[in-house]
């Protein structure tokens, strides 16, 4: 049976999540055997035999201690499930140190991958083995999903905002990527491949053929766009304060907002500030920036964000 033959855990996320799966499976199996065992045993042991008179049965209507026990014991079990599940979730949904960024843009029914050096591939994500990656994902139309069964992780991809997925490609090979959110007639054929390559093969692919560099790198593009759209009139890149906050060291910093809230300046925040500048204004700055919705494309914004990250 083909499905059984595939041994498929191919990333630290898969090993960790499989461990949670086995833990829950073990504890659940205990409760399963206990409950179904008692059910079947009582059904057989206390059956009324054919032709027999209705037997005497007990008048007992309940037992307080028992109720307390079977409230507490399952509570402890589910608490353990929650904690273990939470700890591993936090781990596999957090950025790995030294990870590089790849932008993912989806539309009905394709995945487009945009690498830092400006290249793009369709329905095929190539990564060198051993280098962690952060996927910054958005959709052009409806909600799509991004699921790598062999990594045990998935994330929906939304139009109008970024979602993230963190990959640790620790094993070479070709792995399936499936769309998991119904997105129209072609949903079930919206599939891509993750190809994890040895570093030298990856370098060779990068420098030649289909992967050859065709455009300026994404950060160069971001720099050019900043100049073109006049961002630098109000935002400095050296830390000095102009009309708006400086881009230097902006990415990843905690920002105090007008109204007392705080926000981390991640991709989502920067994107929102470009398209809807008045939504979250940094404390001490005037709300004067115009929206760039309609004039900048999603690709432009992704490039600008990539460039801002280099200013840290």
């Amino acid at each position: 049976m083909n499905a059984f033959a595939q041994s498929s855990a191919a990333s630290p996320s898969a090993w960790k999540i499989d461990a949670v799966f086995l833990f829950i499976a073990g504890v659940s199996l205990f409760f399963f055997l206990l409950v179904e065992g008692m059910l079947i045993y009582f059904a057989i042991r206390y059956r009324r035999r054919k032709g027999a008179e209705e037997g005497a049965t007990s008048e007992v209507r309940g037992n307080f201690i028992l109720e307390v026990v079977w409230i507490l014991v399952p509570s402890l079990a589910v608490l353990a499930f929650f904690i273990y599940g939470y700890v591993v979730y936090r781990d596999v949904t957090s950025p790995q140190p030294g990870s590089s960024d790849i932008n993912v843009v989806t539309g009905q029914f394709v995945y487009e991958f945009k690498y830092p050096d400006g290249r793009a591939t369709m329905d095929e994500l190539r990564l060198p083995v051993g280098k962690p990656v952060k996927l910054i994902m958005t959709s052009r139309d409806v909600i799509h999903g991004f699921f790598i069964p062999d990594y045990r992780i998935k994330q929906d991809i939304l139009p109008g905002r970024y979602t993230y997925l963190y990959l640790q490609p620790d094993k070479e090979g070709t792995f399936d990527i499936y769309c998991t959110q119904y997105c129209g007639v072609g949903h079930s054929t919206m599939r891509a491949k993750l190809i994890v390559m040895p570093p030298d093969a990856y370098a060779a692919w990068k420098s030649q053929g289909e992967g050859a560099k065709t455009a300026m790198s994404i950060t160069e593009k971001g720099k050019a766009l900043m100049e073109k759209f006049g961002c630098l009139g109000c935002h400095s890149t050296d830390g000095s304060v102009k009309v708006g906050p400086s881009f230097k060291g902006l990415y990843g910093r905690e920002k105090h907002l007008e109204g007392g809230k705080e926000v981390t300046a991640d991709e989502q925040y920067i994107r929102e500030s470009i398209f809807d500048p008045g939504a979250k204004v940094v404390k001490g700055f005037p709300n004067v920036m115009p929206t760039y919705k309609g004039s900048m494309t999603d690709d432009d914004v992704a490039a600008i964000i990539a460039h801002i990250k280099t200013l840290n």
Partner: protein
Amino acid sequence: MTENTADGKALSGNGRSRGYLEEKGFRSWALTLDHKRIGALYLYTTLFFFLLGGIFALLMRIKLMYPGQQIFSDQTYNVLFTLHGSVMIFLFIIPAIPSGMGNFFIPLLIGARDVAFPRINLASYWIFVAGIIVIMGSLLRPMDTGWTFYTPYSAKTAANVTLLSFGIFLIGMSSILTGLNFIVTIHKLRAPGMTWHRLPLFIWGMYATSIIQVVATPVVGITFLLLAMERLFGVGFFDPAKGGDPLLFQHFFWFYSHPVVYVMILPAMGIISEVIPVFSRKPIFGYKAIAYSSLAIAFIGFFVWGHHMFVSGMSKTASIIFSFLTFFVAVPTAVKVFNWIATMYKGSITFESPMLYALTFIFLFTFGGLTGMFLGALATNIHLHDTYFIVAHFHYTMVGGTVVGFLAGLHYWFPKMTGRMLSEKMARWGWLLTFIGFNVTFLVQFYLGYKGMPRRWAEYPPQYQSLNIVSTVGSWIMAGGILIMVSNFIHGFFRGDPAPSNPWKGLTLEWQTASPPPTENFETIPVVTDWPYAYAKRKTTGDG
């Protein structure tokens, strides 16, 4: 078989009386104010849609037998899974037990002559029918969004989403009216002496259900109105291209659709709480624990909707809180299961078809509940979400739980509703095939999901084929079981042996009147002096 009228306490007339079924003719049904007739109308309607939804499911399984199947197109499959989900949930599971059996049995079980507002009750049935007609109208350009209507896809597709959502809006209105009616009925029309702690547990389940319907249903109604406004007038609530937020729709939708899961399961648990003590000849164990756990489930159920959205892009903090709360719905559910099993301890158990279905409920629902642990835990959820693991899990809880509980109720109350007995032999065959077929169909789907096969897939890579064939064959076995069961209902209805007033020797009030009950239910309203579970034959104390 002779008619047995000797054991009825409050039998009015002889067993030959057709009771509330006496009057004939279209008007006598269409304009009836009798809760039993309205309940029967709901049951006929919902059973029809159960079979229709089942046919959709069989067609889906045929499509999935092998990859590249072209008996019908991918788009037809997408429409089929949407119709299967919508019909089964909105036209069968949600109304079947609450509106069907609830209408028929709440007044009988609490010793009332009718519900509090018989005219509203009739209106709610016809609003339900109006909703069905509107939904059927949407089939001209059938929907393919799935029963979850996620935006922005549902706001953009050319299919008739607006019409379908308006139909569901009407059905929701009908649910709200029925829920209100039941709450007032249970508060005001209990027979003398029937204190809250003498209420049958089915009534407790229905009470909790009605509260959920009244509180949660308006939210889905409003959500569908917003969706209609977005589609008709271009108001951007949910489409980011118009400044909306697609996640807002998911929050609204699950704020209703998660609590409604308990609208489906709580009444079924109520039925199980009635059947187990009758066929074990023992008092129900832990009455208060079972009663209050229904309320606890209804209450906690309002705070866990986010567990449908762990991978949606919702904030991580929200995911963590929802995961924590989700696990604590499991506790009152486990309490019920333990109490049912404790009820069987040292009983004198017989295995007529209602009991077979009740035991099946405990067996399958326990399995469904435990597989839910993998989905409540965040780490495993991000692997299993939106795969066949989810499909298998909710079919174990919704079919293995609610539908099996509903069938337990149908077999248990069939003699009371129709005045005729079912063939026990056919009932057992139907049960056996349904049980085997169900497990063959859905057990393998857990593994398919673990191996990564997403749900709502018209096509799949060849490595998933072998288990899909098993699942499809299982669906045929199950269909055979349902077919035998339905034949048994039809045969029993027209040709079944006349039923005595109390064939299972139950102590709840519906068994203390004729089968079928007269229009006014009871000749004189009974006075209640004890709880309804005093089944022990010989009193012993300090045992167990």
